[in-house]
C-alpha cells in the first residue's frame, strides 16, 4: 500500500488536470440564474418609434438571444434560430448588441428574422447589465421574468436538444 501511494496521488492529480483540460473556460456560471431578468426599455430595430421591455413578455417563457451583425458565430446560429422560428416552440427576442455599423435592419431583411422583437442596444449597456461577455449568448426567461438558464456560444441542434428542450419542458 505504502509503495503505491505516490502512484495513487499521481493518478488523482492527473484525473483533476484531465478534467480541467476539457472544461470550457467560457462557461462562466451566470449570477443571474434564479434571479429576475434585468429590466430595460430599448427602441426596436426597424421600428424606432416602438420600444421593447422584458415586462412585455410576462406570462411567457421566452429566449433572449444576444447577437450582433458583426458576429460570426451568430451567423452559424441563424439557421438554427430560423428553424425554431418556423416550428415556434418558444418566442425569441434578439438583442442587437453594439451594432455600431447599423447593419441589423438590412441584414435581417435580407436573411430573414427569427425574432419576435429586436431591441437595439447600441451602447452595449443592456448587454453589460445581463453580464454578456460576447455574442451569441442566450438566456431562458420564465413566465415570472426569472432567468432560468444561460447558454454561451451558438445554439446548434445538439445543444438545443440536450440543453434547451428539457429546460423549456420543465418551465412550460
Amino acid at each position, binding site marked *: 500500500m505504502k509503495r503505491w501511494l505516490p502512484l495513487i496521488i499521481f493518478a488523482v492529480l492527473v484525473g483533476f488536470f484531465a478534467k480541467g483540460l476539457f472544461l470550457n473556460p*467560457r462557461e462562466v456560471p451566470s449570477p443571474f440564474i434564479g434571479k429576475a431578468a434585468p429590466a430595460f426599455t430599448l427602441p426596436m430595430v426597424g421600428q424606432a418609434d416602438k420600444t421593447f421591455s422584458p415586462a412585455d413578455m410576462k406570462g411567457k417563457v421566452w429566449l433572449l438571444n444576444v447577437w450582433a451583425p458583426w458576429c460570426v458565430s451568430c451567423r452559424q446560429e441563424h439557421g438554427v434560430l430560423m428553424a425554431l422560428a418556423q416550428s415556434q416552440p418558444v418566442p425569441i427576442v434578439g438583442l442587437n448588441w*453594439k451594432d455600431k455599423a447599423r447593419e441589423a435592419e438590412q441584414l435581417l431583411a435580407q*436573411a430573414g428574422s427569427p425574432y419576435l422583437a429586436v431591441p437595439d442596444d447600441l451602447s452595449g449597456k443592456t448587454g453589460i447589465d445581463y453580464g454578456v461577455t460576447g455574442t451569441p449568448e442566450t438566456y431562458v426567461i420564465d413566465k415570472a421574468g426569472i432567468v432560468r438558464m444561460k447558454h454561451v456560444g451558438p445554439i446548434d441542434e445538439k445543444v438545443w436538444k440536450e440543453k434547451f428542450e428539457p429546460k423549456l419542458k420543465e418551465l412550460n
Partner: protein
Amino acid sequence: MTTPTLTSFAADEAPTLRYPQGGEGLPWGCPAGGLMKSLLFSLLIALNTSVWAGEAAPVGEDPAIEQRMVKLAEELRCLVCQNESLAGSHAELAEDLRKEIRVQMKAGKNDKEVIEYLTTRYGDFVLYRPPFKPLTYILWLGPLLFLGLGGGIWYVTLQKRRALKDTPVDEKQLDEASKLLAAQLLDEKR
C-alpha cells in the same frame, strides 16, 4: 483594425471570418496584439510604471479618478481575454467597462460599490482575488491544510527517528556481535 462590412447570411456563400473588434487571430474579439503588447509593456513597467497606466486606458479628464480606476481595474479580470486584467485589455468590452467604472467613480461611488456593480453582473469570476466565503474556504485554507499535513508527517518521522536513536545499546550484545563478525571474517579468509 478593419470596419465590419455587411455580408449576407446566405448558406451558399462562405461567411467572411471577422472578429468583433478587428483583432485578427484570436477569437472572441481579443485583440491579437494584446499579449505581445503586454509583454512589451511589462518590460516598460520595469523602466517606468506610468507608461503602463497611459497605455492601458487613455487618461480621462480627471487624473485622480483615472488612477483609482486603473488601480481597481488591475484587480479585475477582462471577461473577453480572460488572462488579461481589465486595466490591460484592449477588448472593446474592457474599454466599455473601464468607461463605466470611470462614470461611477465620478458619480461618487466607492471602490466597493463599483466592484459590487461588476460582480452582480459577471459573478466573482471578474475578481482576480476571490472573496473569502464558504464556497472558497478550501481555496483559501487549502494551502494551510497541506502545510499542516506536511508538518505533521515531518514531525512524526522525526519522532520515529529520535526513538530509534534513543534505544540504549546493550554492551554485551554488541560485544557478541563483533565477535561473531570477526569469526565470520576469519572463516572467509581461510
